[in-house]
């Protein structure tokens, strides 16, 4: 079972997963994970490859729905609402819970249209000036405005990898989500671009609940305040980041953070 650090103060969570299991066909990829995700902190999921942390992340905005064989059991709530009932519209859910992927995936459209796409389809900004405003605000928040303000009509795919990833973050925040899920957002980036993204996560912290999956323990230590350690589909340990890294309770956590396996 999951070890929850005793000094973790459980405040009113933004998202709550209770006994969530995920199956791909007959294979159980996630085994009864329960976690509270706070709204005011960055939560990091760490663990070795194939431990299910990305799978679990994708259940939080139902991206697993696109995989026909995937099946989710258990309860996931966003502000107390079950997100897997028919009462929760999946389109609305994804507008509330945005996502940034491992590989930057800007649309092959202009930088402007990349940002404006979400607000436009949801009808959040209608007039040209409103859209302009959203685009500028999102790009500013993503720390990209100064670099691209003179070439908004250039293709988003023409940017460098790090810029593309920040563009994707700007695209996610353009619809004003409550939660942003990041699936190893820096794994395809060089150290400088990674540093910029981490800085950006710091800036966004507090405005949005952020959940980040990462391979790099250093990154988890740098950007997060809460850390959950996953292993073989189970959540082994969850607590304050500082506690997990300096004072792990479970032997497996200890082994992983000291680099015995991974």
């Amino acid at each position: 079972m999951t070890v929850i650090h005793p000094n973790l103060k459980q405040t009113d969570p933004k998202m709550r997963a209770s006994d969530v299991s995920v199956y791909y066909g007959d294979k159980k990829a996630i085994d009864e994970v329960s976690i509270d995700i706070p709204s005011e902190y960055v939560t990091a999921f760490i663990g070795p490859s194939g431990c299910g942390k990305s799978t679990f992340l994708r259940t939080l905005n139902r991206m697993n729905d696109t995989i026909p064989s995937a099946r989710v059991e258990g309860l996931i709530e966003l502000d107390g609402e079950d997100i897997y009932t028919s009462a929760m519209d999946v389109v609305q859910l994804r507008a509330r819970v945005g996502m940034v992927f491992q590989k930057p995936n800007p649309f092959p459209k202009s930088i402007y249209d990349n940002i404006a796409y979400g607000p436009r389809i949801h009808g959040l900004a209608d007039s040209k000036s409103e859209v302009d405003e959203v685009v500028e605000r999102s790009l500013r928040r993503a720390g990209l405005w100064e670099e691209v303000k003179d070439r908004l009509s250039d293709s988003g795919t023409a940017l460098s990898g790090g810029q593309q990833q920040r563009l994707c973050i700007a695209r996610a925040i353009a619809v004003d989500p409550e939660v942003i899920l990041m699936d190893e957002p820096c794994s395809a980036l060089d150290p400088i671009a990674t540093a910029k993204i981490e800085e950006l996560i710091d800036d966004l912290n507090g405005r949005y609940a952020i959940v980040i999956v990462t391979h790099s323990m250093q990154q988890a230590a740098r950007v997060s305040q809460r850390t959950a350690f996953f292993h073989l589909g189970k959540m082994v340990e969850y607590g304050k980041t500082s506690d997990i890294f300096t004072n792990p309770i479970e032997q497996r956590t200890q082994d992983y953070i000291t680099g015995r396996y991974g």
Partner: protein
Amino acid sequence: MSNIQAPTRNEAFAKRLKKRYAAERMFKLAGLGAIAFSVAVLIFLLSSMALNGLGGFQRAELSVPIDLSEYGISANADQFATPSTVQALEAQGLPDIVQISAVTALGEDGASELSSQAWRDLAAQIIANPELARGPQTFNLPASADLAAGLNNEGSPEMQSLADQLANQGVLSENFDFGFLQRSDATDPQLAGIWGALKGSILTMVVTLVLAFPIGVLAALYLEEYAPKNRWTDIIEVSINNLAAVPSIIFGLLGLAVFLWIFPNFRSAPLIGGMTLALMTMPVIVISGRNAIKAVPPSIRDGALAVGASPIQVVFHHVLPLALPGILTGTIIGMARALGETAPLLMIGMRAFVATPPDGFTAPATVLPVQIFLWSDEIDRGFVERTSAAIIVLLLFLLLMNGLAIYLRNKFEKTW
């Protein structure tokens, strides 16, 4: 360390390396040979077509001086504006006028040296330009098929010498025949034209495109994006792949049995031809469309879903625009195949002799490949060159379609 021989530095390795390079050179040469062979065949095909076909765009014409005003054919422009002008001119005795003028100018055999329908050509000329009827004019009128053959050093020896003699007098000459692109089929090769078949082809292609493109693209989108992956979709997929391989004449039989049974009055019509060819083109579009849709990176779909796009928005905002170049390529391949198709159209009656261009989708028509087939079957030597000319028109039409496809593909192509 130095006494250990690295396995990549001995004699045997060098030998194997040589062999590998030799294999590569052989492969390159074989590929180059294949390309050279295909280019040579293509050049041979195009040049022989061009040499034969250019003659088909010309025809033997006799210069005949005619003064229409003398015979009371009035030059009133209003009179020429009515649709039945040709009949009116016939009633005014135009065929006789042509014959009398020919006898006057060329001697007593003059009338038979002209094509029997030469007056129609004259009628067309004066309808186009009523001024010509005002006074004495020299008209170039089509020679008879026999005389035209004589000018090409074919046919009977008497005709050949007569043709030479007339040519020396400067009365008989080969002129570029603009009318070939404006007239329709005729029994006399001197009067045959391609416009009827070309227009038939265009109308048929429009029907095919309008039916096959949307149905094919929607089917491809549904199968790729929405259809559950189960036994039924597998069966549908196999069926569509088989459909693409069905011999075209079978589609012709289907068109005959189904479409002409439903619309018995539209025999030979581009509408039915287009519907039949659409059946044939659709599987090609579905298959290429599915491949193009599959090639859209899943990360783009994920990105769109993650900002809250509904599945249909993902499809129409992202997947379809990115797949469009591939879909267009498949469509053009299918359309090009349909354009060159003869067999199914023979089955639904588009092989009829159609002497007037179709004036709509339901009028009797023929198409370019069928016209080529019909002309190649004619006994008259004059049709040999006309056939080649028709092939050139067909190839140019194809080239135009492919050019359009390449333009559209480059226009929609995006990189990511």
